[in-house]
């Protein structure tokens, strides 16, 4: 089964890390990207670049910023292929942001995704 691990963290934190700390964390992220269970994932640009789209009636409403303002923002995600959500949580715990932010683990709907 596939699980999405949504990575939430304090966006300002990264700016305050030393070069060494950043390199160490990037190394952990790269290692996770290459793990056997990992099927995909992306790093997202900051919430300052977010655009939220809604359509009400005939009107398209475009606003700057994320759909919800949170103290800890979504910064990226991994796609894990695991046998259970518990196993996916074990992998989520290896994500550096788990140590200061939080990882939301969500099962991908069984026949979800793109039709083939």
């Amino acid at each position, binding site marked *: 089964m596939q699980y999405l691990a*949504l990575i*939430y963290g304090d966006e300002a934190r990264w700016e305050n890390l030393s070069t060494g700390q950043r390199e160490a964390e990037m190394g952990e992220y790269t290692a996770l990207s290459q793990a056997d269970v990992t099927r995909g994932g992306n*790093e997202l*640009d900051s919430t300052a670049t*977010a*655009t939220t789209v809604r*359509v009400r009636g005939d009107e398209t409403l475009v606003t700057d910023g994320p759909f*919800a303002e949170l103290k800890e923002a979504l910064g990226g995600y991994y796609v894990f292929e695991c046998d259970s959500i518990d196993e996916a949580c074990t992998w989520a715990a290896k994500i550096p942001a788990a140590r200061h932010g939080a990882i939301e683990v969500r099962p991908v*709907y069984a026949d979800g995704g793109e039709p083939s």
Partner: protein
Amino acid sequence: MKYAALLTNNADEVAAWERLTPEEAAAARANEVPKWEALFGELGPTGVLGDGFELDSPTTAKTVRVRDGETVVTDGPFAETKELIGGLMEIEAEDLDAAIAIAARIPVVFTASVELRPVIEH
């Protein structure tokens, strides 16, 4: 440019969905499927759609934190917001305006929202 489109659902609608019987949920789902198939059928061949993920209900979420070396897992999504992430699509678009035009056709946009975020290419 590559964008991640975060597809949200209205929290009240998610809660209402949770109260449906399995038969009602299947019927409601069958009602939704054609809208998505129409979108995928039209946009699929244009190559703008990358990977897509429909997520199971937020009630199936678990949130993981590690504090002082200890893993703490709680049930439920990270945040209880008025709109809740229900899916994710990768979109390849020329610019933000083109991405917005695509987002404005994704079925959830009429009752909730689609958040577009540029993907950082490594």
